[in-house]
């Protein structure tokens, strides 16, 4: 954790409230009618959850911890397992939505500098979006795909422009004037400020762990 640790980097995603449940309810990432306090602990979410099937992630327990105001839930590594597939959201008989709750919890974790390792690789995404107006899969992920996929894919990727033009499609990206607009909008809404803070936090985190590493060496 660092000095730059902010209480919230977005008052709309993670408003500062007295309880976790309040923050979750007030966040714009959750529905207005979310039934968090009405949870029956019936387990329909967990029984329907693909992540619960293969890992120790349990959406029912996540909700219980939020109801009990157990802030340590944001440090629980399992919240990063949710697929955002919204099956729990669909199946909940109480209009609750563990998947939306987890989105808020992850944002709260990020505010505290948790999970920045996962976010770090994505920073280029924001910059690319501002530039071209299109989403870009981060290089690290692309690298993973390059390793996974066979020649068919590599060939297609290498010839993307010509394949697109054969299909009668133009170049990818927003036309020039639009790009300036998107950058201005993202700047105005505070996207870059937030991303800058996250970058600094991630960097500081890196330094701290280096320092720690140094200390460990000494004691050894």
């Amino acid at each position, binding site marked *: 954790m660092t000095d730059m640790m902010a209480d919230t980097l977005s008052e709309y995603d993670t408003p500062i409230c007295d309880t976790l449940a309040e923050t979750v309810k007030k966040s714009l990432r959750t529905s207005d009618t979310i*039934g968090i306090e009405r949870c*029956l*602990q*019936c*387990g*329909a979410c*967990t*029984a*329907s959850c693909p992540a*619960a*099937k293969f890992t120790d992630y*349990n959406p*029912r*327990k996540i909700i219980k911890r939020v109801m009990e105001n157990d802030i340590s839930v944001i440090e629980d590594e399992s919240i990063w397992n949710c697929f955002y597939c919204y099956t729990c959201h669909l*199946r909940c*008989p*109480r*209009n609750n939505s563990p998947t939306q709750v987890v989105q808020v919890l992850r944002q709260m974790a990020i505010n505290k500098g948790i999970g920045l390792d996962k976010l770090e690789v994505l920073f280029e995404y924001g910059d690319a979006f501002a530039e071209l107006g299109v989403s870009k899969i981060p290089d690290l992920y692309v690298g993973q795909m390059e390793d996974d996929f066979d020649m068919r894919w590599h060939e297609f990727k290498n010839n993307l422009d010509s394949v697109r033009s054969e299909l009668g499609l133009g170049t990818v990206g927003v036309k020039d004037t639009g790009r300036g607009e998107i950058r201005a909008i993202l700047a105005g809404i505070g996207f870059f400020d937030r991303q800058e803070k996250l970058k600094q936090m991630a960097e500081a985190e890196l330094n701290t762990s280096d320092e720690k590493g140094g200390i460990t060496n000494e004691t050894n």
Partner: protein
Amino acid sequence: MSLSNGQIGVFICHCGGNISDVIDIQSVKQEIELDNISVFDCEYLCSNIGQDLIRKSIDKHSLDKIVIGACTPAKHEKLFRKCIEDVGLNASMLEIANLREQCSWVHPDNLAATNKSISLLIGKIKRVQLALPLTPIQVSINPNAMVIGGGIAGINSALNLANNGIHTYLIEKDVTIGGNTAKIGKIFSPEKLAEECAMCSLSPLMNEIGTHPNITLLTHSEVENVSGSAGDFKVNIRKKPRYVKDNCMACGRCSEVCPVYVENDFNCGVKDKKAISMRFAQSVPQVYSIDSDHCIELTGGECGICRNVCKVDAIDFEQRDENIELDVGAIIVATGFDEYDASKKPQYGYGVFENVVTQMDLARILGVNGPTLGKLARPSDNSVPKNIVMIQCVGSRDEDTSGNRYCSRYCCMAALKHASLIAKKYPDTNVTICYIDIRAFGLYENYYRAVQDMGISFVRGRPAEVVQKANHSLVVKVEDTLTQELKEMPADMVVLSSAMEASSGTKQIANILNVTLNEDGFVKEKHSKLKPVDTSRDGIFVCGTAQSPKDVTDTIAQSGLAAARTSVFISDNEIRLDPQIAQIDHSLCNNCDECFKCPFGGISKDVSGKVSINPLVCNGCGYCAKLCSKSAISIAGYKEEQIIAEIDGVIEKGDVLVFLSRGIPYATADNIGNSVAQYPANVKIVQVPTTTIATKAMIEHAFKHGSRAVLMVEEPTDNPIGAFIYPLAFENFKDLKNELGETGAKLHFKKAYIPHYRGLAEIFTSLAQMEDGK
């Protein structure tokens, strides 16, 4: 305020804190007290002490007009009117400000609620000064009663009435009485651990209905129309042909020779029934009937074999619909429930996987007169299932639009009953019940304990899905929330405990009778504790599952009460009707006859040729008043100057004025309060018979006082009054909008539905917060 004529008494009820916890009663009193206005407050105004206070104060302070600030007039208006009448005031000298449902329960901000309550009371004070005495309308009560629905609720209430000497018509749409109770085989009992034979209890009662001298049973019959008013209802019944005359001896020869098999909806749709048949052996009346959709003769073919074998010549292919007219004083609605359609939850596979059934299907399977003659067998191959998994709360306790929010109240016990029956007869079959909470309330806990002792398994969790594997075997995916294990439970048969829903017949009858339904589609009782079987309309009562989900035991208890309430009502001999109906000023009438278009047939010419309004038919909707170009017709108690006086008192700068029709829209607004929803306190409601009576002068008065917007909320079109009134009210709204010119943009129009009270609260909120009221 310039308040001169007469002494006015204002009584404010604390409602045991319901009002006084939010509204500062003392500052309200200070604010409205004047020389000619005396203000009183009381913990419970509806109590004897409260009514005594009203009566004594009228006497002591020579009050001649009364304003009450309390709960919604829908609750205690009659009580308070009678109270002031007791001490010699005309019942019309009373106005009630709704300080609970439309103030303290919807505005948590104490100051805002207090200020609003002051304005509501001042509005009523101004209005009551223009009150005119009205003569009550007396009607003598017809001594006959009608019960709609021949299930256990209808049967029991009809027998109670008949035994009390009241001639009762029992109307049943099916060809036999018996209803769902006839299907369920065994009934669970709170005090015994044994299950009783449903038919053994039901059949004697059914027979008694068939032979009781005070009961006229009309089966295969439906109520088509009801007119008139409490104490004097006129009912039109359509009796459908059964193509078998009443002299049928029920020998069964016809059915034996009939070549057509049809789906038997009494037995889960199994094709084991003939086109001429009796529903079940104990049917009442013991008369066969022909399924006209499948009979060869009736579908244009040539057959007639049944006619040839009938020894008493009872088959009559010429039978047609019969229209029957009845006059009754009171009506009991006992139209029962429908089982929730479990195929709305496709994740459980009902209707797709053969071996997924509902508890009602299982009841039939276990019934000795069922499709398997009582043998436990799964539908796909008639084998005895080794593993049965039951899933509770299918369509109950479910906020999804395809489910119901309420608990269906009987399904936990039904599941326990079936588990117990199976455990006793098939010890090798394992039953597991997946539940969220087992609701074995009261003495039923004994039964639950006994079933636990039998070794039935319980898994606490709501299953996600049912999956079908090879050989029609099933797997139920569930989290056992107590052990936090994800389980995939194998099952040979899955039983869904499907919710109990208001029947389609209940909705249909409620519409015909114009009684209010609650947001779940059940008939709403007038007061959940004090008047649990009275409906929103006098002289119409409700019982059984038409009112809310319940088991047989509770149904019988409640149907007895409905009969008792009906007996009391009928034995009054005379009833007084609401005098707030249309009245005509003959000096203005030019005999244009426009008002004869009254959709309820309430206006005609009397012997002298003058336009006359039938007080027994008129519901005061204002339809005629709107059509009258000479303004000769008005609704008693709702004259233009009276409404303007109320607006004058109520509206302050920035307020939203809402005209609410007094039927469904007013009840919907009350529901916002009942449901602890909210809207801003600058929304002020004025009740009207319907919005057709709203005039330009009223609306201009509101805008003159700084109103930011005016909203008119009308009856929905699927209600008997709304069906006629809504188009006229909408026309009135458009005319007013035009007449108002630019300010017309601040006039709004909506219709209300009881279940959509949140929608109404949202409309209130958005108008209250809108910048320019547009």
